[in-house]
């Protein structure tokens, strides 16, 4: 057999920067299909794919693909490793490659959503927002941490994915590392959400019950609620929103409902 084909190091860096455009062509039909394909361009070029082989390669990756933008780069790295293996051993079929992709994109989206969207981003952004409202430029500096996370969070997974190949996934699976990580991230995200629901949702009522003619008479409704459970109204509001979303109402519709509700209740003087 001739020399083993190997992806040139610079081609890997080419794939790495193209990974930044993963969602460039985000669309309703195949989501990130073209993003995945663009990452493969320098890989195919380096492996010397031409003609039928190149055409098949592009078709192989122009299929439905959707995962988390940062951790998903690990799948891109593994794809590069699999293409390298396929260039040397044609018995690896398109099905094997696509099955892997489909099997991994869900779990990785799950980790990324809980870890970045659910935990890290809200914490950084809440701190940054409070600094900014206080008039400190430090708020902007803290907010840029999000960008640093994007760079680090794509670089390491991509090169781990390439070096580990499919083996890295076996490793992750056998140690149940991924499952543990998802569960842990969810626990943190749920705790932080609980904290933020209590501290960030701002709704209270000035309604006074049993009011008579006398000055200072009556019982403040908010006082009663606070005695039962502080922040009961924010919690109730959250459950209302959760219920509506669970009923498959679109976020935009829920937002309109919330606006109408707020304007109505405010005009009535109930909140």
């Amino acid at each position, binding site marked *: 057999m001739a020399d083993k084909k190997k992806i040139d190091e610079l081609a890997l860096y080419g794939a790495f920067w193209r990974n930044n455009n993963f969602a460039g062509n985000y669309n309703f039909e195949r989501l990130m299909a073209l993003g995945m394909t663009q990452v493969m361009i320098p890989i195919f070029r380096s492996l010397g794919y031409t003609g039928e082989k190149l055409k098949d390669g592009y078709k192989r990756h122009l299929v439905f693909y959707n995962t988390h933008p940062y951790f998903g780069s690990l799948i891109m790295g593994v794809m590069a490793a699999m293409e390298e293996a396929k260039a040397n051993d044609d018995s690896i079929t398109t099905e094997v490659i696509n099955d892997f992709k489909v099997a991994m994109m869900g779990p990785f989206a799950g980790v990324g959503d809980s870890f970045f969207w659910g935990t890290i981003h809200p914490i950084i952004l809440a701190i940054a927002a409070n600094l900014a409202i206080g008039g400190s430029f430090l708020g902007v500096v803290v907010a840029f941490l999000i960008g640093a996370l994007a760079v680090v969070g794509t670089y390491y997974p991509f090169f781990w994915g390439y070096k580990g190949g499919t083996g890295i996934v076996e490793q992750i699976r056998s140690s149940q590392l991924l499952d543990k990580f998802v569960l842990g991230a969810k*626990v943190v995200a749920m705790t932080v959400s609980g904290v933020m629901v209590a501290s960030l949702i701002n709704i209270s009522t000035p309604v006074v019950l049993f009011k008579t003619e006398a000055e200072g008479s009556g019982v403040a409704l908010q006082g009663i609620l606070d005695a039962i459970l502080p922040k009961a109204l924010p919690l109730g509001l959250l459950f209302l929103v959760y219920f509506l979303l669970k009923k498959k109402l679109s976020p935009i519709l829920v937002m309109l409902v919330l606006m109408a509700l707020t304007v109505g209740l405010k005009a009535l003087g109930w909140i």
Partner: protein
Amino acid sequence: MWKEAFLVALVAGGWSLFLKTIPEIIVILSKKESKFAAWWITIMRGIADAATYAYIIPAAITGLVLGDLKTGLYVGGTIQLMFLGVFIVGASIPPSPFLAAILTTALIILTKANIGEALALVVPISIASQLLTLAFMSLNVFFVHWADRMAEKENSVGLDLLNTLCSTGWHLVNIVPAFLGVGLGVEAAAKLLSIIPDWLSNGLGATGGILPALGFGMLLLIIASAEVWPFFFIGFLAAAYLNINALAGAIFGVCMALIYVRLKSAGADKAAK
């Protein structure tokens, strides 16, 4: 107003056309990869990502270029808290306040509009920019079919350019409305604000405290399960009774996660034996 409009358009993503798109096109056409270019483009993406998710950044920089940083910081921080937790999850696209953060800041600085009243425009503008996003995602279906034809012809450079320009399209979706909004819309918006009745602007102003419920509702929709709901209530009660903040909540959460995951896998190991 057009000079201001140009500056605001640069903040809204115009900068990336020069610093990200052009270097990408140079690499693609020359077919020469380099580590320097890869890092440069990735760092530019990091900056663009930070600005996309942290609305404080575009608002503050808009304030800076229009000469009133303090207003930018205040508006950015306020909008940030309203939309905390609202992210693109799966394929559902929520309203995005990126443009609203920029346009509201510009409106307040350029027309001396009342901050409270101007914030009433945040939600309508966010919904409008969501519609633009959805329109672009529909347009992208056409581009992915074009990509199929390019793949058929083994046109690598074409595919490369197509996805890069689609990426740039997401910036154009912000740049063009920001430019036109400041150039044409600011004075009209100020007039609109002056005729909105008090009861309506008061109500819209109060949505700031209500809207975070949407973000967290969406978040819970994807991560909540019977197994992890108790942790939500622990966090909620800790904040309601002890007033702990987000960072303390996160540390608290990490401790519980370490304990819970370890106990659970120890239990599973025992069961396996």
